[in-house]
């Protein structure tokens, strides 16, 4: 399958997905807009010092998280990186819990201990928010191993960047997953840069699907700016993985519109290159398509924007009304707490 393009997906479900073509297209658009507007607000809050630490925005790459995660079922697992707001929201972590986390509040999805780079949520099997490049891949292999050993037909979707491909953990994990035939979907968000290092200054072989081929892992190269293409490929990959087809590899070709983090002066990219990629912004791309096919009617976009804006406002209000974890609790959860009487078995 190496070299196959998105169009080759063609799973059992039509591109419309489970909820019907019309609603589904709008759903994808809404998901991407939720991420975009959420992150734009994050950037603002950062400039007001309400969010601190490292903040990595996903802006421009929303189609990757939304397109893949939309094809997962609730029993599946997700492992992501420090650029994971989009993945968290797409997976179903509430905007409130995510925003509260970014503001360091105890109501946050990691009690304010993790911040932007470490969103976690057991309820949706969202295993973080990993800020060690490549650090999530072996964990994804292990989650898939546990599913396999316990006879669960779940898939683990593991997101990482093009930079991670240079780390040993990428190669060791691909090999292990393939050798043991484990249900992992490796999702490489290839945005062409690892911080300031362009892919061709980091990889002797820039065709990432060839790396997957080296481990006999089937791969798809996908237009990561086209959410429908991402979803289409992800759907067939997930089905195959779930059916026992072993690990698969999606190379999602995308681009980040913002700097690597709020600290990055972005001196290493050509402004024209950024502008060119912005022409392929996944949100207008889908909006235009939905409008052209009559799915999106007059006034729909304004309505969606209104809903999304209200959700972001609500999340910010929630975060701001939130509380800080008591300092006495600083040492809680360093190791697991004993189950207290009356709380479970």
């Amino acid at each position, binding site marked *: 399958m190496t070299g196959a393009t998105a169009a080759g997906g063609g799973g059992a479900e039509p591109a419309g997905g489970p909820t019907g073509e019309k609603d589904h297209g709008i759903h994808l658009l809404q998901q991407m807009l939720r991420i975009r507007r959420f992150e734009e607000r994050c950037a603002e809050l950062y400039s007001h010092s309400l969010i601190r630490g490292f903040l990595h925005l996903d802006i421009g790459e929303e189609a990757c998280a939304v397109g893949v995660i939309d094809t997962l079922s609730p029993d599946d697992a997700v492992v992501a990186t420090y650029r994971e707001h989009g993945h968290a929201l797409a997976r179903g972590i509430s905007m409130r819990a995510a925003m509260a986390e970014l503001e360091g509040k105890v109501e946050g999805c990691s009690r*304010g201990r993790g911040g932007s780079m470490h969103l976690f949520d057991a309820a949706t099997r969202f295993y973080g928010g990993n800020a060690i490049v490549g650090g999530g891949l072996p964990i994804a292999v292990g989650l898939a191993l546990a599913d396999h050993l316990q006879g669960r037909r779940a898939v683990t979707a593991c997101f990482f960047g093009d930079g991670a491909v*240079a780390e040993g953990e990428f190669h060791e994990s691909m090999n292990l997953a393939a050798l043991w035939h484990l249900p992992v979907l490796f999702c490489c968000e290839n945005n062409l840069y690892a911080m300031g290092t362009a892919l061709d200054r980091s990889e002797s072989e820039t065709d990432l699907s060839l790396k997957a081929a080296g481990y006999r892992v089937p791969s798809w190269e996908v237009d990561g700016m086209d959410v429908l293409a991402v979803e289409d490929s992800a759907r067939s990959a997930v089905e195959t993985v779930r059916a026992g087809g072993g690990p698969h590899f999606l190379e999602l070709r995308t681009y980040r519109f913002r700097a690597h983090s709020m600290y990055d002066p972005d001196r290493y990219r050509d402004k024209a290159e950024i502008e060119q990629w912005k022409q392929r912004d996944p949100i207008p791309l889908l909006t235009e398509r939905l409008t052209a096919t009559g799915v999106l009617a007059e006034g729909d976009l304004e309505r969606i924007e209104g809903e999304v804006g209200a959700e972001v406002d609500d999340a910010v209000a929630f975060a701001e009304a939130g509380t800080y*974890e008591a300092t006495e609790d600083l*040492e809680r959860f360093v190791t697991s707490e004993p189950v207290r009487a009356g709380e479970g078995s």
Partner: protein
Amino acid sequence: MSKVTYREAMRQAIREALTRDDRAFLMGEDVGRYGGCYAVSLGLLEEFGPERIRDTPLSESAFVGAGIGAALGGMRPIVEIMTVNFSLLALDQIVNNAATLSYMSGGQFNVPLVIRMTTGAGRQLAAQHSHSLEGWYAHVPGLRALAPATLEDARGMLWPAIQDPDPVIIFEHGTLYNVEGELSDDAGPVDINTAAIRRPGDDVTIITYGGTLRTGLGAAEQLAGSGVSAEVIDLRCLRPLDTATIVSSVARTHRAVIVDEGWRTGSLSAEVSARIMEEVFYDLDAPVARVCSAEVPMPYAKHLEDAAIPQVADVLAAVQMLGG
């Protein structure tokens, strides 16, 4: 004298090393075109070119190992690792190769390698970017571990480190890069063997290093206001430890507080405390006190992070506990 930041002092040191020794080169992630993740090497690519300011892929184990190999082969590599937490991906190369080759080979080979890395908390970077693991490295025979806490040391430790025939690790506390001060225009190499007394005093010795030197000095200043004269020792060289400076101070002041951003258990502070016990136990008027980071992975929220790392108030409380 000129006004410089710690970052600039470090950059001057790298410039000096590359200018004076043509075997020296810098390599690491984003050290070239990006200018270094903390902008230490900004501008050096233009000055020295891509052969000597080498960007590497994200592969800590490989490029640290390559640094070891290049050192064996006659070069004088300066390897930058973005953050101490990421150095764990290269721990195998550092501990199993760099630290052992001289000994394992019966002295036939040596590894003149310098590794620089950022360490420490205080910037809300949470549990995978904020730890103080220099104590781990200080545990390992075969390595020298340095912690420049002042502009002079940021400027002056690299050259002697490069001259050292064996591996040296330099830990740069992340909160120091923007610290600005006066540095003499002829500032140059400093000694990398001894601890320094940063503030003389008679009543208690505060022993610290790196990012918490400020904390120790801040506490000493406040103590002076209440009539307690505190001596502040900056360890500077974490391995080998300058025991003589520590014990001669404690023998005079009879009290010691160790301030260490590392975790207490099995830490550098434990080592310093043990040496005081071994050498000047009978001079002590009170048990040695320690102010360390809380034994937690570093939290993101500011109030939790502040609570987790040593603060001036914690040092004052520890001194008070010692009485006198």
